[in-house]
């Protein structure tokens, strides 16, 4: 982990492949969802750690995850995770095979379709858990 001054950004916009096109939007979304999931994970390891301290404390902490507002937050978190996962697979494929890098745009729409399918399967059940009796 070397520290250089002042370094140029590692991520360079390469002309037509990126700026303003699917390549740029997939990159922006990948970065934003990645950062959001990371900050959730920091909090999540800490809230899980209370399980080691006291059963009643852990149950009280978990109760705060069962409110309607947090329920919507969990839906947003899952939306971010599912996008990051499928788009990450797309990145791996585009890096590894010439076919995928030629069809990276089609693959990005494939990611959006898969994302929508998973969210349609996930949301009703989750929202029923959160808002149902």
């Amino acid at each position, binding site marked *: 982990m070397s520290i250089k001054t*002042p370094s140029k950004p590692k991520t360079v916009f390469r002309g037509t492949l990126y700026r303003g096109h699917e390549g740029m939007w997939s990159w922006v979304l990948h970065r934003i969802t990645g950062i959001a*999931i990371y900050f959730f994970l920091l909090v999540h390891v800490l809230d899980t750690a209370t399980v*080691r301290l*006291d059963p009643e404390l*852990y149950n009280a902490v978990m109760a705060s995850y069962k409110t309607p507002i947090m329920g919507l937050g969990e839906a947003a978190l899952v939306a971010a*995770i599912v996008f990051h996962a499928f788009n990450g697979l797309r990145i791996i494929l585009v*890096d590894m095979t010439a076919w995928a890098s030629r069809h990276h745009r089609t693959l990005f729409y494939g990611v959006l379709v898969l994302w929508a399918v998973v969210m349609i399967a996930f949301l009703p059940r989750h929202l029923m858990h*959160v808002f149902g009796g």
Partner: protein
Amino acid sequence: MKFFRFDRLAWIFMRVSGFLLIGLIFTHLIVNLMQDGGVKAIDFAFVAGKLANPFWQWFDVTLLWLALIHGSNGMRVVIDDYVYRTGVKRFLLVSLVISTTTLIVLGTLVIFTLDPCPVGSPADLLPSFCPAG
């Protein structure tokens, strides 16, 4: 080009761990967020019951280590891209290493030292396999 350069190892790690994390996190979400009552079913008894099983212990440590290293390496790249001032960058990178190490140690201890039947806790909060009284 040196074969074992840090950046190259990090690049490979992100792809391998990202691939594994898809299976780990999707399973994690199905078991904790979809099965039975979803979030509403999470309490001390549920987690203690899971972590009494070596399968879930090893599943969770793998998830913990891979997710935290994958996430913090992602944050390292983000910091590299946006922070130019050497002092600020050094501070952020050192904080990142410290917080990641702390959470990995904390989470690993929680997984392997959790007592599912702590004495003195109300029996109705504990897993059903705990001796009564």
